[in-house]
């Protein structure tokens, strides 16, 4: 610092001396550069004035008289001003920048305030969002819980329905057996007694005639009882299986109603699960009963087909159509019949559909996933000619049926929790 200082004092003194001697502009530029350099090195105005004073004292030490001293005052000032000019510029710049800085600071303060407000709002929003998230989570848990409960209840309901239907079937079977075995036998005995009685009065024509009349009436009653027993529970279903039982039922239906009923089945024999068999049989029974009661049909076709583990049954009549939703909505037997069919199918995770359209008759469709494998080798028996022809006829008729007044009732297979036991399996 000291050597630098002394060097600078010397340079300044030399330049000042030169200027006092010649007052040349060139030397003034030197003064300017010294000032600039001092500013650059971080010196202050006071440092420069001190430098100037030291140089001036050294220079003036050899001055002969005070008058000579006074003469030199003006150029000394010019020189000093020149050296100080860079400091002046820096000072003004500083002042200007200070003002700008103050303005910037004010702006910054405003921005900071705005930012703080925004931050506060953000915190509020964030809190609200957290609360909403929490609420949503709670609500979701609540709904999960409700859903779980609903599933359990549905499952319970399903089990209950199943039980009711099973008990119903058992009860029907029992009543059917009672009717057949007890009432049938008793009526038989009565009939035999009447015959004995009739033969006991060979000469009393009036009495014999009465007894024959009673026997006719009795025979009719026995016929009704037998049919009623069959309706309740065809024993063929239990003893011979689904297809023979259905065939027998259709023959009986045709005999009774005069409506031809045509069965096309592939395969012809099937080891259906008893549950599936009874559902299919009951749907067929209920559908045919509806046809006999309401349809005024001249023909019924029943098609049965197993395809990729699904049993497909279609019952089509060519009779009067009906509007499906009103029938389903109305009270009474009709509605209960349809709902009963649908419920039975649904319990086996199946699909139940009714299509009815003017001029196209009515088609009841059932699809049930099979739990047993087909007893026939798959693809061993080709489809019968009649099945194919009929299938084509049905298919070509369908687009018309779909046009209007056509309601498709299909329920998705009942979803069951995977770990819950299969209710139908008893």
């Amino acid at each position, binding site marked *: 610092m000291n050597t630098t200082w002394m060097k600078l004092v010397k340079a300044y003194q030399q330049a000042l001396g030169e200027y006092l001697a010649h007052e040349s*502009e*060139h030397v*003034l*530029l030197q003064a*300017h550069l010294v000032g*600039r350099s001092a*500013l*650059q090195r971080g010196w202050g105005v006071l440092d420069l004035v001190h430098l100037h004073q030291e140089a001036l004292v050294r220079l003036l030490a050899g001055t002969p008289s005070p008058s000579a001293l006074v003469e030199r005052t003006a150029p000394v*000032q*010019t020189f000093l*001003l*020149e050296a*100080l*000019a*860079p400091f*002046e*510029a*820096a000072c*003004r*710049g500083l002042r*200007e*920048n200070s003002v700008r800085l103050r303005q910037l600071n004010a702006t910054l303060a405003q921005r900071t305030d705005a930012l703080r407000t925004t931050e506060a709002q953000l915190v509020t929003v964030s809190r609200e969002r957290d609360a909403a998230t929490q609420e949503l989570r709670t609500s979701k848990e609540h709904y999960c819980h409700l859903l779980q409960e609903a599933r359990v209840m549905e499952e319970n309901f399903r089990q209950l329905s199943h039980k009711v239907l099973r008990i119903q079937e058992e009860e029907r079977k029992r009543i059917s057996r009672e009717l057949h075995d007890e009432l049938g036998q008793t009526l038989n005995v009565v009939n035999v007694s009447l015959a004995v009685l009739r033969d006991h009065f060979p000469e009393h024509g009036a009495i014999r005639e009465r007894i024959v009349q009673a026997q006719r009436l009795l025979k009719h009653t026995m016929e009704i009882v037998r049919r009623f027993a069959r309706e309740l529970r065809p024993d063929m279903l239990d003893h011979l299986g689904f297809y023979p039982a259905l065939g027998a039922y259709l023959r009986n239906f045709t005999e009774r109603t005069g409506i031809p009923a045509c069965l096309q089945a592939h395969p012809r024999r099937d080891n259906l699960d008893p549950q599936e068999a009874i559902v299919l049989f009951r749907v067929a029974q209920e559908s045919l009963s509806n046809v006999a009661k309401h349809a005024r049909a001249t023909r019924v076709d029943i098609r049965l087909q197993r395809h990729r583990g699904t049993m497909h049954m279609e019952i089509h009549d060519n009779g009067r159509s009906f509007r499906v939703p009103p029938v389903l909505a109305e009270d009474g037997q009709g509605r209960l019949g349809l709902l009963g069919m649908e419920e039975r199918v649904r319990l086996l995770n199946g699909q139940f559909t009714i299509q009815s359209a003017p001029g196209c008759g009515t088609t009841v469709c059932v699809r049930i996933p099979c739990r047993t494998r087909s007893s026939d080798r798959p693809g061993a028996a080709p489809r019968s000619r009649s099945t194919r022809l009929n299938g084509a006829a049905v298919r070509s008729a369908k687009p018309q049926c779909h046009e209007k007044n056509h309601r498709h009732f299909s329920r998705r297979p009942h979803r069951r929790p995977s770990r819950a036991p299969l209710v139908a399996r008893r």
Partner: protein
Amino acid sequence: MASEYKIAVASAADIVAARIKARHLAQSVGFAAPEITVITTAVSEVAQNLVDHAQRGEVELQDVRRGERRGLQVTARDQGPGIPDVARAMEYGYSTRQGLGLGLPTAKWLMDEFVLDSAAGRGTTVTMRKWLHGPHPPLP
């Protein structure tokens, strides 16, 4: 008395010549000693800037009037490479060469008015004014 000077500037000697003319004109306009020093210092800075960046150019000095007021206008022109970023060039301490980065800001702060017109490839023109008895209010 001449009220206008044009000085070709390409060296330190030319800068001194510009200072001499500026001092002379400032005295004739009526500026006091500190303001004369301020004007010569500003002329030194713009002239030095011109030599450093464009090698050569010219400095024009004019006695100007605006209404009742008298002043001195310094115009430094060159056909050099121009200044691509004018705003940065006006930052104190900013320098593209090994310079001090004091030149143009110093001139601006010392004078009352300062206009820098430049773009890359178009040369540079600095116009600045100093008014007698304080800065003149800017034109609308």
